[in-house]
């Protein structure tokens, strides 16, 4: 199994979620993160003093999948999250050794 971690733009969350469920995914975990990258933050003025907001709000999606689905899901995420603008995000793939379902204790792909 693999763990896919995708960093995307917040307003794409709904589309990505819909695309993934269409692709057969039944679960995922989402959190709010801040991204620093090529897409620069923005400058703001507060009472005449400039301040930089270096970080852009991003959404991180974590997704455990069987090995054979990795490529498909990466394609699905890219398809839904892509705006062709800088800052669209990244997808990381990490090895995942084991998954356990808390409720039942099932393990491996059955637990997904």
């Amino acid at each position, binding site marked *: 199994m693999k763990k896919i971690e995708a960093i995307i733009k917040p307003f794409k969350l709904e589309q990505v979620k819909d695309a993934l469920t269409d692709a057969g995914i039944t679960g995922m975990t989402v959190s709010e993160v*801040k991204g620093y990258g090529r897409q620069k933050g923005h400058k703001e*003025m507060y009472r005449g003093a400039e301040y930089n907001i270096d970080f852009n709000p991003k959404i991180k999606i974590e997704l455990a999948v069987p090995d054979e689905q990795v490529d498909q899901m990466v394609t699905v995420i890219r398809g839904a999250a892509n705006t062709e603008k800088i800052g669209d995000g990244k997808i990381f793939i990490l090895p995942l050794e084991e998954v356990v379902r808390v409720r039942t204790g099932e393990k491996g792909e059955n637990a997904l």
Partner: protein
Amino acid sequence: MKSQIWKLGTVGAVTTLALLVMAGTAGAEEFDAHASIISLGYGLDTFYLLMSGALVMWMAAGFTMLEAGLVRSKNVVVILTKNVALYSVACIMYLLFGYQIMYGGGSGVLPGFSFLIGPEHTAAAVQAAGGDITYSHLADFFFQVCFVATAMSIVSGAVAERMKLWAFLAFALVLSGFIYPIEGYWKWGGGFLDTLGFVDFAGSGVVHLCGAAAALAGVLVLGPRTGKYKNGKIKAFPGSNLPLAALGTLILWVGWFGFNGGSQLKVSTIADANAVAMAFVNTNGAAAAGLVTALLLSQFWFRKADLTMALNGALAGLVAITAEPTAPGPLLATGIGAVAGLLVVVSIITIDKLKLDDPVGALSVHGVCGIFGLMAVPLSTGTFVAQLTGVVCIFTWVFITSLIMWLIIKVAMGGLRVSEEEEYSGVDIAECGLEAYPEFSGDK
């Protein structure tokens, strides 16, 4: 001035004393008492009007909090800015143009166009009038100026979360300087609606329907918030801070005692005092009833006690009773409020189904319930025909002139709406460069 009076008496006191002495010399001792009573009554009524005005001014805070609570957090700073700025713009425009247009007399339909606000009553003139001038001219101006801001506040809620700040303020200039004063003249300035017998004690029509008509024109030109009506489904955008919405409603409620209670304009006689007290009781009763029926209806309809509906219900009751809060008894007033509370819930759902996007329910509260309030007046006084004429004239005038103005501003400023991207990431950063809650939202 704090110490002088304490020690000596002021110019004012001296003037009064002089007058009293003059009166005393000219006639008999009784004149003394008469002049003093006129003076005291003038003081009381002026103070009453000023306190009422301060309560109405306080309603600006109510609208500000209500709207800030019902929009999403990314659009809060702009709604705050719009509200404080529209109040300010309205005050200045009404000083320069509006008041004199509204109360400067005219031909019945067309007001006489003049400027500024005219001189204060002199003590001599007041005494000479023998009790017919009962309060300061400036106090009247102050009371009135707070009403025009109310009308404009109604608009800001309905067009929230998508309209450009400066386009909105440009419209505020015109509404408060011209559109509102002209229809205000028709009724309160002694124009044709007044002659007709149209009853609108404190402004269900002149103020609330006016605001709602201008808002409706704005909403039509502007369109809904992006994503609100998608694939035939209505998307909910929950308000970001409900305690502020509740606070705003309670501020409006207390301010309304000035709005309705002050509109008697005089409290220094038994009959006037009774009318003012009746206005307080009825205002309170209508609001309470509107809140309760809206809460009950939302519970039965949605199976949830929707606080935002209850708040709108209270405001609906307030708007409805504003047309005539002194004629019905407390039971009838409570009944009018109760119906308004039901009406507003149905209206909000219906207007949403019509894809008129009104984030705070302003069209329903001020428009629908304003009309209802005016048409309910004949239950206690006035005639059905006069009321209908008033509704039609006010709505038509304000709606059409507003529509034209919105379109002119749209062309002149290159669109009324912020760009879609700005709308997505929030108008606050785009227009004000600030976030309302910078430490609590994603972007820090």
